[in-house]
């Protein structure tokens, strides 16, 4: 039977039936020859056997350039934290930022829990936040305090068209972008509030002590 639409076999005598409601053999895309003419390189990887990710697992241990059955082991210079789902320490690992301080303690504990537990990941996230506060304090002590203005790169707002890039563009991310500034400011707000609360508590304590001294009855002679 000749199809009324190229690549279609819509039942005759009906108003247009949407595609899923009958046994269409193919979709009403433009004719593929037309696509081939229009798109450079169309179909050069059409053959599935030639595709580089097919089959997904392609056993070929000689293809990698490795000249070892098992790699030499990198020296472990400190007890390297590792997932308990690993049967051993991997022979090679990163050494970018060894765990330290309170955040390091939280991280080491998190690595006693398997990756299957949400607590593993949530503790690591918590350690990340602690790390930020610890590092802020450390940078002050080192004389290289964090600068939220330069570190957030907010200068780009003025040099890269902050307003021009946002106004009248119909961008949906504008609803939540103001929260970014809050996230940047959060460590300073928390530290500021903690300082204020501590000062207030100390002052209250001092005042209470002074009041107690004033009210103490005079020593009887």
């Amino acid at each position, binding site marked *: 039977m000749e199809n009324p639409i190229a690549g279609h076999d819509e039942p005759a005598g009906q108003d247009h039936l949407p595609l899923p409601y009958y046994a269409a053999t193919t*979709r009403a895309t433009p004719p593929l020859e037309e696509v081939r003419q229009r798109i450079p390189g169309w179909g050069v990887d*059409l053959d599935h056997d030639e595709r580089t990710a097919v089959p997904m697992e392609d056993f070929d241990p000689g293809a990698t350039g490795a000249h070892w059955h098992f790699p030499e082991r990198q020296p472990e210079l400190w007890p390297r934290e590792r997932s308990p789902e690993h049967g051993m320490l991997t022979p090679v690992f990163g050494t970018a930022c060894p765990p330290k301080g309170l955040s390091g303690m939280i991280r080491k504990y998190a690595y006693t829990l398997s990756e299957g537990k949400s607590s593993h990941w949530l503790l690591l996230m918590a350690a990340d936040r602690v790390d930020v506060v610890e590092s802020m304090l450390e940078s002050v002590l080192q004389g290289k305090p964090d600068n939220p203005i330069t570190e957030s790169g907010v200068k780009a707002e003025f040099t890269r068209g902050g307003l021009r890039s946002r106004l009248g563009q119909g961008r949906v991310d504008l609803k939540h972008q103001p929260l970014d500034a809050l996230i940047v400011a959060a460590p300073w707000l928390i530290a500021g509030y903690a300082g204020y609360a501590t000062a207030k508590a100390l002052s209250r304590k001092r005042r209470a002590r002074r009041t107690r001294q004033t009210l103490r009855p005079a020593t009887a002679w």
Partner: protein
Amino acid sequence: MRAMVYRGPYRIRVEEKEVPRIEHPNDAIVRVTKAAICGSDLHIYHGMMPDTRVGQTFGHEFIGVVEEVGPSVQNLQRGDRVMVPFNIFCGSCFFCARQLYANCHNVNPNATAVGGIYGYSHTTGGYDGGQAEFVRVPFADVGPSVIPDWMDEEDAVMLTDACPTGYFGAQLGDIQAGDVVVVFGAGPVGLFAAKSAWLMGAGRVIVIDHLEYRLEKARTFAHAETVDFGEVDDIVLHMKKTTDWLGADVAIDAVGAEADGAFFQHLTAAKLKLQGGSPIALNWAIDSVRKGGTVSVVGAYGPLFSAVKFGDAMNKGLTIRANQCSVKRHWPRLFEHVRNGILKPSEIVTHRIPLEHIAEGYHMFSSKLDNCIKPIVVTN
């Protein structure tokens, strides 16, 4: 050396750091000449990936010159210009032997659920990345390749991640001749996925985003139809209508953890970090594809749970395929495509930023300023 370092969510700075040293006999030290900022770098920049430590240097897309090699390195020598895939892999484990380099089991002690990646938190192994003057490259005989003389350096940088990941995303879709392919996200990976879908014989390619300048790039670079999801009431319904009520044959999620389009999902994932990622694009992919169709996921998500509409996926009989791209597996074919002029990956590069100004570069890319699609960091 000068290196970008993470200081906390949305904050980075350039600091003096020690030049990395050979820590394993098959290491190389590479002097970085060009690096790129990846869309997935924004997830760690925003503090979404667990175990992102203050002081780490990001950057998993870079090229450079070999400065020093370990005693067991045979295939590289000092002075070689090299491109380095974003995966760190040993070449000899159970998974590497099956060419699943992205899933190497010998390089990441911190997790078994993900392989090793340069500068991408300690969850992927705790390696410093290439947004610096120098970087340690483990397994130098396995990962890096010498850049062919004919290859443009910016093309080479794009071939370390964004281009192969997009190409791989299209392959995961198992595209047949004439298929309707919808790509969520017109960032670098989405653009390459859309372009690659044609190479695999797609009949229609539709790209969805909310940034008009990126959709314009999808039309000119990837010859795709485009939809601005901010302009339609319901993108899933729109997709059904535009595909004669059937849905796409293949949907590719090239957005990942910080997808926009549903405020609450974005808030809980990207801002409050209560999900591994905002699954808006993934849910739209599941709902937009036809029954029996394929969803390909190359957008990056964190390891925590996400509110994915798995019931719809199950009831529609979908095939969901996902992975990090094993970059080096695709290089021979992609090199051919670049040499034959079928692909010109550097066409998506919009900005070149000196390393010293990288904080502004991240802010620009993160906030989508100045029509930014792909920024490259120049170290010298």
